[in-house]
């Protein structure tokens, strides 16, 4: 048996993985199978390119508890490759499945390509300084972060659905107090424009400069890890980088951000990057399209004014 298997506990992410899956399916001449929990979604997945949807019927609320069941299914199906949505839950689930199946796992692939029977992935290493290209073993698992691909388009594609009744093992776990993270303002991960503040701000009053600029641009405000974790001027969901949010706005303007590799790893997919920093040797300028070497206290108000 063979086939490409796709799973995410988040339906929009599955639709994005279908885009990657369809390209792979073409070059490898394989069928696409989606594993999901809701029968309602299966029609939409089929329209977007799935040949077969396996619908797991159960009401256990903790997505991670399905790892064993998905591993059992995959073991029987012997897939060529498994794509799992690289949410944080997804990466945990993928790791458990990979261990159960004793197979390889590439987390956070930003590219995947097939030719003949060979599949290659790319992911970053050393905090983003380097890119690692790997050739996958048969049956390897790959996680791909949300928004790496656009959702697949609807078509008149045909496929079928199979319902599977399952009973996830309870394990010795209880889950409670589930709180959605309410993003003050909007979610920076999907913002069109971002103003990013770093430790170059002298004190919290300087946040005003960022706010005024953001208001002019209709932008959201984000920050470096230091600003969130050491200064607490913004909440931790607002910091950008390797261990923070990955953003790709059309415009990203930084002020007083040095541009250390861990930060840049989270913003370098932005379309246009502008940096303002006093240190002309700051690494942020290597990551920027446009830069002004100068004091943010002087430059930012001028910029806000010039934007009219």
């Amino acid at each position, binding site marked *: 048996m063979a086939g490409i298997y796709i799973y995410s506990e988040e339906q929009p992410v599955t639709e994005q993985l279908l885009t990657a899956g369809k390209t792979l399916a073409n070059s490898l001449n394989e069928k696409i199978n989606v594993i999901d929990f809701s029968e309602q979604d299966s029609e939409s997945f089929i329209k977007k390119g799935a040949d077969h949807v396996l619908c797991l019927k159960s009401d256990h609320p903790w997505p991670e508890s399905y790892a064993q069941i998905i591993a059992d299914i995959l073991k029987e199906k012997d897939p060529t490759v498994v794509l799992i949505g690289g949410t944080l839950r997804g990466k945990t689930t993928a790791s458990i499945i990979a261990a159960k199946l004793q197979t390889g796992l590439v987390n956070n692939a930003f590219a995947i390509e097939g030719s003949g029977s060979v599949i*290659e992935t790319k992911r970053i290493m050393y905090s983003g*300084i380097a890119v690692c290209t790997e050739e996958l073993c048969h049956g390897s698992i790959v996680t791909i972060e949300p928004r790496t691909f656009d959702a697949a388009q609807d078509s008149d594609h045909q496929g079928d659905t199979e319902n599977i009744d399952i009973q996830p093992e309870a394990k010795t776990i209880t889950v409670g107090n589930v709180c959605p993270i309410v993003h003050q303002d909007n979610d920076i991960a999907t913002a069109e424009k971002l103003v990013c503040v770093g430790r170059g701000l002298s004190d919290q009053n300087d946040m005003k400069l960022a706010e005024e600029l953001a208001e002019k641009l209709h932008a959201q405000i984000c920050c470096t890890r230091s600003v969130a974790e050491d200064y607490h001027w913004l909440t931790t969901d607002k910091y950008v980088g390797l261990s923070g949010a990955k953003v790709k706005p059309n415009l990203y303007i930084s002020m007083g951000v040095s541009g250390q590799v861990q930060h840049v790893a989270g913003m370098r997919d932005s379309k246009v990057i502008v940096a303002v920093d006093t240190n002309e040797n700051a690494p942020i300028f290597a990551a920027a399209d446009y830069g002004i070497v100068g004091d943010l206290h002087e430059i930012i108000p001028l910029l806000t004014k010039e934007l009219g």
Partner: protein
Amino acid sequence: MKIIVCYKWVPDEQDIKIAADLKVDMSMAKWKISEYDKNAIEEAALQAENNAAEVTCLTFGTSKAKQSLKDALSRGPEKAYWVNDAKAENTDGFVTANILAAAIKKVGIPDLIFFGEGSEDSYGQQVGPRVAALLDIPALTFVTKTAVKDDAITTTRSIGNCTEDVTASFPAVVCMLPEINKPRIPSLKQVLKASKKPVEEIKLADLGLSDAELTVKNKVKSIQGFVMNRKNKLYQDGSSAEKVKALVSDLAKEGLA
């Protein structure tokens, strides 16, 4: 309560250079305990101080990782286990997890096993939950808070669009996010004390793993410097106001102002 905290000895990425042919040059790199793992060690040390936990640490590394032991021990653990093998030079999440799980079984499965959220060098983000799966115990990942009561741990997980409290009875694997604590800078006294703490070297051959379990799964074809393709235009002429004007005019051309 017994805790094993796992850590990895990694090159400091600040010293990694990318050559003109995009080769990664680590010859100048100093090595250190992965920053994310320092958070895991700190959380274990806090459990030792506040809940009288018995903490040991475990690393799989080459002979070079010997240098890490004293640093690790000065951060709190009372004993270090070191699986010393050249295989650590060329490993992956699959092999590392097989080795760590086998080593943990050999020294005795503790109540809690702590990890960072990923390693600073390869950031594979899988060894912790893989070890949990191999030991058939729960994996609590992306944890920002821990609380131990009786024979169970309650963690707060921060998983993108929500937080949740997950309680697991012992034994369990817990992987920490960096925001959970501020790792200590060991005092001179702690460093001196560390030299007297025991280190047990474990040989790979003693772990009874098969060749298949010790063979990496996916084949690394290349590791190359990331190429940044940016305009890198710096406004150098004129007053600040003129520089800003030039910037806004360029942004307008991009349809952004």
